């Protein structure tokens, strides 16, 4: 009996779903007032107050999406910020990474500054961006861009540095001009590194958007969470977290899909997986 049921590649999905159900179930049992006697807390309301209740979280989500339908605006803003931060950050990281990798003198000159900016906890720039770009979309995009830029930049820089000298010499012997080398050798070689970083950077773009909203805004899912937190509405906070997680997973999956489409030339198993 156990032989047939134990986790195996065939029933992996079922087990994963089961694990989720178990966690939610446990959450439910431990938090609904009066279901089990309070273990740590003084009365049976406190567990629900601190941790929320899964049923109410689900109701909140369903009100957002179905009954009230008032989350779409906020979600749209957050996704817009994420998308803009991701695109601008990746494109500028790619451009600057290519440029610096091909200009050794410029990269030597800028190296300490790049290191400093990378080691700086860039989330701390959020208040400055709020002052510069206001409380709208701009400041959140700026924060996301600073997070995404460095990830992509370092990967591209590394990718270009590690282009095989033989492939490079071969392309030159085949008559490639500097521009053609960039287009046909450096860029494709760097893209494998870019894609290994895009999974991280799409997540960071999301972080930038939500943290920016949390710190000061009038719309977005981060703003909803912040509002709910202000009135100790833990169920809404939890609901916001669940919605954000779901959308982060969707974004990551779409990056993976694009990656598989563009990187057919790579041997399976992903040779480059560095950060």
């Amino acid at each position, binding site marked *: 009996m156990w032989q047939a049921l134990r986790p195996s590649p065939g029933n992996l999905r079922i087990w994963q779903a089961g694990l989720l159900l178990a966690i939610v179930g446990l959450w439910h049992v431990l938090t609904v007032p009066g279901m089990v006697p309070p273990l740590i807390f003084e009365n049976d309301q406190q567990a629900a107050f601190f941790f929320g209740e899964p049923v109410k979280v689900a109701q909140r989500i369903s009100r957002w999406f179905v009954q009230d339908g008032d989350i779409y605006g906020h979600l749209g803003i957050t996704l817009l910020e994420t998308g803009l931060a991701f695109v601008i950050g990746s494109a500028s990281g790619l451009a600057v990474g290519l440029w610096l990798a091909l200009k050794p003198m410029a990269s030597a000159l800028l190296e300490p500054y790049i290191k400093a900016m990378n080691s700086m906890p860039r989330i701390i720039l959020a208040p400055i961006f709020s002052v510069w770009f206001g409380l709208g979309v701009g400041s959140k995009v700026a924060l996301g861009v600073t997070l995404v830029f460095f990830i992509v930049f370092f990967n591209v820089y590394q990718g270009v540095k590690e282009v*095989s000298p*033989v*492939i490079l*010499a*071969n*392309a*030159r*012997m*085949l*008559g*490639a*001009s500097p521009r*053609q080398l960039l287009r*046909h*050798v450096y860029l*494709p*070689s760097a*893209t494998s590194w870019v894609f290994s970083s895009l999974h991280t950077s799409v997540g960071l773009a999301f972080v930038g958007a939500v943290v920016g909203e949390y710190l000061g805004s009038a719309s977005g899912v981060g703003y909803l969470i912040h509002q709910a937190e202000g009135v100790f509405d833990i169920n809404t906070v939890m609901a916001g977290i669940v919605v954000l997680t779901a959308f982060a997973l969707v974004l990551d999956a779409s990056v993976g899909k694009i990656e598989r489409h563009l990187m*057919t*030339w*790579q*041997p399976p198993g992903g040779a480059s997986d560095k950060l």
Partner: protein
Amino acid sequence: MSVSANTPALSLQAASVSFAAPGQPGGRYTAVADVSLTVGAGEFVSVVGPTGCGKSTLLNLAAGLLAPSSGTVSVFGQPLVGINRRAGYMFQADSLMPWRTALGNVMAGLEFHGTAPAQAREQADDWLRRVGLGAFGDRYPHQMSGGMRKRASLAQTLVLDPDIILMDEPFSALDIQTRQLMENEVLTLWSEKKKAVLFITHDLDEAIAMSDRVVVMSAGPASRPIGEFSIDLDRPRDVAEVRTTPRFIALHKAIWAVLRDEVLKGYTQQLQKA
């Protein structure tokens, strides 16, 4: 034998190459010194020598990837500046672009030269068939065996129809059967078009079996040619069969007598370094 033997296809005159090398006496490492070497149009010349004798340096000189520290390199009588546009180079290591299919790789050179895509595709297809990869045009390098990659490299080099072909131990990574097949194929292709070939190898058998002339390099550093042998075996040759002929054995003996001391010298030097 040669097409127009007046001006050599490739000529190195007293060429030396040295690199800045901290830790070496004088702070410089001289790879090759005072090398004079010519390859006539349509001539197949092999260079043999012990490991680390600067054979690849010689080839990079001829390709224009490396400029001589002193001396001159000329191509069909013209001093070489920058990349040697009349040469095709087949590298020792894998040199195919992993993000292009076999067909894409063979097309690459034509694309770089501005050939119309349709025409480039047609020519590339034709060359893939000639090297026996007609059915594998859509494979990526990681989906091909070592031998197939070498064939694709060969097609990639030859599709541009270079007047000079430079080959750097192109088959050293292949097993002996595949290797002999490839050697015969290269000889067949060469005999059709009679290009100048500069072939680098550490394998004396391969050098004798394929060439018109074999040049022996001394052990490095500062290696230079120390012997030159004309190979008067009949063509066309089969690289496997020619090895058993008395003339081949006599040539092998004569060249090996020169090469052996250098190999030993090179070997002791490597041991000392280690």
